[in-house]
């Protein structure tokens, strides 16, 4: 029986308690800032007060002389650049010669306590030559004379791309109707409640240990080795449980490198805990994106061609930006049929905190644009937008125009389920009194098909050992950021070995102890670590079951294992405990341990840039959002959300629903109120009071529907669920507002001011900036494509 169709599961699919739940509800989970080491010192970072300036000099001597100060640090002591992508090594731990946003780190101090370190910052003298600040996409494109970085194709363009898949102009020529729209998605940030913290300890053995609230210990490990010029073997990075991540702790950060260096300088452990304001400066959140979309359609609604343009405000550094840029063009094709597709995109540098990956990485913006655009062209053609979506979902097994490979697709079922449950058909366009309902669909990746840096190694590794008491320890580099990845490892191994999750100890996210997992980003962890864990566990299962079969004198095929016991399926009274079987297996085979690893299947896409978008399998979602709009104030109240998510298979439905509900929450915040606002070159509102994260009183009831497509790529058929469900909520809300009061707000957040302006016919629609996109690369259809290149990182991400 294909793996994904297995019905004999005893752990998988159960609403089990998370393995770390008891620690979390008793306050015993040790987050990075909870660590206390003997002789520990405390660091603070001095940050730039200017959005853009050249550094003439930095003098930390007065700070160094302050009693209680143990060490100071300036940029010239850490001159080697770093960055998450090999192609954008454009950050320094402390600014070398330029600062590029208000909040860019310039110098650091370690002292006997945090207050002394803070006081010492005030004694550091920095001489700046202030430069003009670039604060918008338009400025960045228009001011070629002011360059934020000295790399990139020209001006402040960080990266530009243009691809035509299948002659889009020919497609428009065939169309009966062509529609164009422009949209804007404002930037917003992750806002994990835990402020980033890190503790470094450089020991007398010359080895360095860093504990950090990071989602990607492996990449931090690499960055530390590079910048500190230390052998990676002498560095150990331990990711503490993250108090929320959402993508905001996925880059290697200045403060992590700084405490490492300060620990080396002082010979003492050094801790840094960022303030909330500093977390806003770390950012790496949602890119502001201007988008233009043009679609050609037949009268019956079939798309003949789609042309999508994006312009991303990247902020001051590269971060994941090249990937983000590609993502704004990648997934338009995997939901509804698009036979010819053209994508042009540009990412520019501005003097703001750097943007990067936030939940949905690069895809919520185009998904918002695309789904609103669909409603609009359906209105043009007098088509029902719900029916259009149902009729135009791509078929399973499709390879799209841009060579993305769709495997299983539950989009149609997701749409149908939310339509049925929400009563959309009876409500849409039919109700007075400012009430409205909208729907949208979406797709997301279950892990990226390629790693961030070129290598031919697995993306995820799992190691398991069994002790003589039947205890099982699972080692994996994955990082639990609250999503439950530690629990997923325990569930999978428990399922395979026929034991209880509580009999498993999970050791994760420690570069000394655990095999590499690339990190908790791109919704990759359940699929990749799950598959690696299955591989490792089955090796041990074979040994343990074999030993048990021999002892019981029954064929191994007849053995069943669950709940810590193995038994003869023909005579369930004949069996033995897992611990006994483990002892027999160790006696027979020696010490019991096994490893498993996972590498995603090779993508069929062959064009340069096709490293972004392919995935082992796409998840799909659909949402219906019901709102009431106050016509006098423009205030939107979300009354209810229905959301269906194609999760492949629920490893634990409780955790899946939690991810879905959390995604809905974050989407509503983005749709209605969250934004990174800037004024006079500064973040306008870097606080939890003024950056508006919805409270309990804004959260509507959510009806979550899980759709299981049992994907052959996923462990037991599972896909991702942590990011995709955010995507359809935002456009569905925009559509609901339109249904309620008849106005389209073509940007997010959809604020009361914009709604009122639109009701007054004063709403100024977003405009696309004048972008010179590069010459279009025409990508030949797949059958005529060049032979496959070796697997590895996307060439576009390589240096």
């Amino acid at each position, binding site marked *: 029986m294909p793996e994904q169709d297995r019905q004999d599961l005893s752990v998988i699919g159960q609403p089990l308690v998370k393995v770390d739940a008891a620690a979390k509800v008793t306050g015993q989970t040790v987050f990075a800032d909870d660590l206390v080491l003997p002789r520990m010192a405390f660091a603070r970072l001095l940050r730039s007060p200017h959005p853009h300036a050249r550094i003439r000099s930095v003098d930390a001597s007065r700070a160094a002389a302050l009693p209680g100060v143990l060490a100071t640090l300036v940029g010239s002591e850490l001159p080697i650049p770093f960055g998450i992508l090999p192609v954008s090594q454009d950050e320094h731990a402390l600014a070398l010669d330029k600062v590029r946003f208000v909040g860019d780190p310039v110098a650091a101090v370690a002292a006997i306590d945090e207050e002394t370190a803070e006081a010492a910052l005030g004694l550091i003298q920095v001489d700046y030559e202030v430069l003009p600040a670039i604060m918008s996409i338009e400025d960045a494109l228009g001011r070629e004379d002011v360059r934020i970085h000295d790399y990139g194709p020209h001006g402040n363009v960080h990266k530009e791309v243009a691809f035509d898949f299948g002659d889009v102009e020919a497609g428009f020529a065939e169309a009966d109707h062509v529609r164009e729209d422009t949209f804007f998605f404002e930037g917003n940030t992750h806002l994990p409640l835990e402020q980033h913290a890190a503790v470094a300890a450089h020991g007398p053995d010359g080895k360095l240990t860093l504990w950090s609230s990071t989602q990607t210990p492996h990449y931090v490990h690499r960055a530390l080795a590079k910048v500190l010029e230390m052998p990676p073997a002498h560095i150990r990075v331990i990711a503490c449980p993250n108090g929320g991540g959402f993508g905001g702790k996925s880059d290697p950060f200045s403060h992590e490198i700084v405490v490492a260096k300060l620990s080396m300088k002082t010979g003492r452990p050094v801790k840094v805990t960022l303030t909330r304001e500093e977390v806003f400066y770390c950012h790496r959140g949602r890119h502001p994106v201007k988008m233009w979309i043009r679609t050609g359609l037949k009268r019956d609604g079939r798309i003949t061609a789609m042309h999508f343009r994006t312009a991303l405000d990247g902020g001051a550094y590269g971060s994941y930006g090249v990937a983000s840029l590609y993502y704004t063009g990648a997934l338009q094709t995997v939901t509804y049929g698009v036979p010819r597709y053209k994508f042009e995109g540009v990412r520019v540098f501005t003097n703001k905190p750097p943007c990067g990956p936030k939940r949905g990485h690069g895809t919520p913006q185009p998904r918002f644009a695309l789904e609103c655009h669909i409603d609009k062209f359906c209105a043009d053609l007098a088509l029902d937008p719900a029916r259009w979506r149902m009729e135009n979902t791509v078929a399973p097994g499709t390879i799209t125009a841009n060579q993305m490979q769709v495997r299983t697709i539950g989009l149609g079922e997701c749409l149908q389920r939310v339509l049925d449950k929400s009563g959309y058909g009876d409500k849409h366009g039919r109700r007075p009194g400012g009430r409205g309902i909208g729907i949208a669909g979406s797709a997301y990746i279950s892990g990226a098909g390629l790693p961030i840096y070129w290598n031919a190694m697995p993306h995820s590794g799992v190691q398991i050992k069994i002790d003589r008491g039947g205890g099982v320890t699972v080692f994996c580099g994955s990082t639990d950021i609250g999503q439950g990845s530690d629990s997923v490892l325990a569930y999978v191994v428990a399922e395979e070995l026929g034991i209880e999750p509580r009999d498993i100890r999970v050791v994760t996210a420690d570069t000394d102890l655990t095999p590499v997992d690339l990190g908790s980003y791109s919704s990759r962890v359940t699929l990749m670590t799950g598959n690696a864990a299955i591989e490792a566990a089955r090796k041990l299962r074979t040994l343990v079951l074999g030993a048990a079969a021999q002892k019981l004198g029954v064929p191994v095929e007849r053995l069943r294992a669950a709940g810590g016991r193995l038994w003869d399926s023909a005579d369930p009274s004949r069996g033995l405990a897992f611990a006994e079987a483990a002892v027999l297996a160790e006696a027979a085979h020696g010490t019991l341990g096994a490893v498993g690893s996972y590498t995603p299947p090779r993508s069929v896409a062959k064009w340069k840039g096709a490293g972004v978008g392919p995935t082992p399998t796409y998840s799909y979602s659909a949402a219906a959002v019901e709102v009431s709009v106050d016509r006098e104030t423009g205030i939107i109240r979300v009354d209810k959300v229905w959301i269906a998510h194609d999760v492949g298979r629920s490893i634990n439905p409780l955790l899946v629903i939690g991810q879905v509900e959390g995604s809905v929450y974050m989407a509503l915040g983005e749709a209605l109120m969250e934004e990174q606002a800037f004024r006079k070159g500064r973040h306008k509102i870097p606080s939890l*009071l003024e950056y508006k994260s919805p409270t309990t009183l804004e959260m509507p009831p959510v009806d979550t529907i899980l759709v299981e497509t049992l994907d052959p790529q996923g462990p037991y058929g599972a896909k991702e669920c942590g990011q995709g469900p955010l995507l359809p909520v935002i456009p569905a809300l925009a559509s609901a507002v339109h249904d309620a009061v008849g106005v389209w707000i073509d940007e997010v957040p959809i604020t009361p001011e914009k709604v009122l302006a639109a009701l007054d016919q004063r709403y100024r629609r977003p405009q696309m900036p004048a972008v010179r996109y590069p010459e279009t690369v025409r990508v030949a259809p797949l059958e005529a494509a060049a032979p496959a290149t070796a697997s590895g990182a996307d060439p576009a991400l390589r240096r």
Partner: protein
Amino acid sequence: MLRLPPFRYAAPGTARDAARLLAEYGADAMPVAGGTDLYPNMKRRQFTPRLLVGLRGLTEAHGIEVNGALTLGAMATLTEVAEHPAVRARWPAVARSASLVSSPPLRNAGTIGGNLCVDTRCNYYNQTEPWRASIGYCMKKDGHLCLVAPGSDICWALSSSDTAPVMIALDAEVTLVGPETDRRLAVRDLYGPDGIAYLAKRRDEILTRIHVPARAGWSMTYRKVRRRGSIDFPVLGVAAAVRLGTAGTVEEARLVLGAVHTSPVVAADAEQFLRGRVLDAETIEMAAGIAYKPAKPLDNADLSYAWRKRMVRVEVARALRELAGLPTGDLPPVVAAV
């Protein structure tokens, strides 16, 4: 972690002693009630007093008394005020405004006296020291310009008290205890001329009690506009109170706006207009049209100032409709969707 600047702490047992400490230390000392507004400001270095005079030990500033009139100890927490049965029944706008301040845990520490004296707010001012240094400081603290209105010679930080508009609308008074003498002052006169000198209370006076007259025969309400249902300061507050005669005409009216100026704004023209009229839909619209004129929101709080100004008209009308027993125009409650 953001931390408080160092200070010494005194805990006097009487308001007189507290006032004397404040007089003795002058600008180096500040009183603290619940601390929920002061401590964040101190952490951002808006204030760095060398001495904090804690008011928790002032027995005369505690308790809620009802005997015809209402006397609130200034140290009564906002929760105590909001939940007090007699306050809820007889001065519902007082209870309501207290219940809408910030968030539940803040209201358990924050006091009614503290809310009346809450520092004016501006999103150029309520920022950390490094942020303010980066932009060059504003005149309210360490700078010379008003950054929201650079041509202005006064500070435009917003009065952000929820309870002050209600207290003014109800003609409440406060007891101020000084180093030598006590005085009573109408809450209407408690506020100063701009966002810096926003209190008429002297530095060395302690606000100990709030006296709210009996308001039998009055209808009253308080409406608050903010982005979220909790935590946020008001971007607009509307306190409204009317006493209707037997013929349904307005005998007395009070309309006070919060968060639209450096102090609460009495919409006197609208009050005057309402007097003698029947509180019907048309009158309400006209009154709202008059009331919103003195509001002067600027770009220093959440949401755009144009929208906030427009909301004054909407919210005044809704408040009056509430008092008239007319449908307010608010969204109907969510019908539980099945």
